[in-house]
């Protein structure tokens, strides 16, 4: 007998309205409803969230660790993307 536990889902919680959703862990469930109910029971027993995202694990596309250098490189030499690159006259003060 194959003892299927159902597919794996990644769970993201929003702590308070307006805040970003943050990954909190994963779980097994057979469908969307069960994923949400399991997430509520498993990850929000103490009011840890006001909203839940459940995403099938295999739907997530992730960069791989070896990519760290080349993949993110294009942004490293673009200092002009930062406000500190620009000079604002003293007379203007804060901008």
């Amino acid at each position, binding site marked *: 007998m194959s003892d299927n*536990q159902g597919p794996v889902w990644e769970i993201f919680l929003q702590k308070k309205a307006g805040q970003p959703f943050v990954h909190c*862990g994963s779980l097994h469930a057979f469908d969307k409803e069960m994923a949400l109910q399991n997430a509520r029971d*498993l990850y929000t027993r103490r009011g840890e969230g006001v909203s839940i995202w459940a995403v099938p694990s295999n739907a997530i596309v992730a960069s791989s660790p070896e990519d760290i250098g080349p993949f993110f490189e294009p942004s490293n030499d673009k200092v002009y993307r930062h406000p500190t690159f620009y000079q604002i006259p003293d007379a203007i003060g804060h901008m």
Partner: protein
Amino acid sequence: MEDNKFEEVFEGKLAKNEMVEPKDWMPDNYRKHLIRQISQHAHSEIVGMLPEGNWITRAPSLRAKVVLLAKVQDEGGHGLYLYTAAETLGISRDELLNNLHTGKAKYSSIFNYPTLTWADIGAVGWLVDGAAIMNQVMLQRTSYGPYARAMVRICKEESFHQRQGFEIMTHLSFGTADQKAMAQDALNRWWFPTMMMFGPPDSESPNSENAIKWRIKRETNDQLRQKFVNQTVPQVEYLGLTVPDANLKWNEAKKGYDYSEPNWVEFKNVISGNGPCNKQRLLARNKAHNEGAWVREAAQAFARKRKEIYEAA
């Protein structure tokens, strides 16, 4: 990259106290060590529900009952966090459960002792969860990311577990003479099995060296055991109870208590299957799993059917 280049990156991470993540390269033995340790930890949470579950229907008040229910439910949650952490290392949930149910995988020896009286529920929360917390606080900084993150969540939930146990001990210790005797009896039976939870002495602990080298553990078995004794003795004194160890005494030079080692022969017997409740625990786990099979099958069939209807529409 060649293998030794990968190894360099891995070692570098450990040296910089950075975490290793599931997709990172890691040595085979590191992976194996983690799968063994995390799954043992998960099984302990799940089997640990049994001795306490034994008292849910007999809790002495409604308050005591809802507290115990919440505590046992948390332990189930801890088991699930840890199973998913182990699964990130490439082992399936089915395989993990199968290893538990066939007796191939181990769980903490402590859960093979019986909970005979209500005072045992106090002693388990206070001592057993207390010892587990000591270990888990250390593991919040373990080198494997998913394990460390599960530990942070678990530690947040654990503090109520120890407090509710200590509260039960307080009520009994400051209650009638019979109640106090019950509390002392529970302490007598749980003290040494709890001391065993930290594992064999450093001199005889085969896995310790690697665990420290890989920063999976940051303190040794004996260090944690000493910490536990130092923390717990004043609590025993507060309750007006006695630690069942004639050799227990304060050692000013080491700023800690001297204590007797638990009976390591008994420890070996219990982990190799011959403790008072091993058979009962394994039977109960198998029974629950097998009798729940129809739920998994029904849920699976329901999901499949709904998908068919959705796709046909």
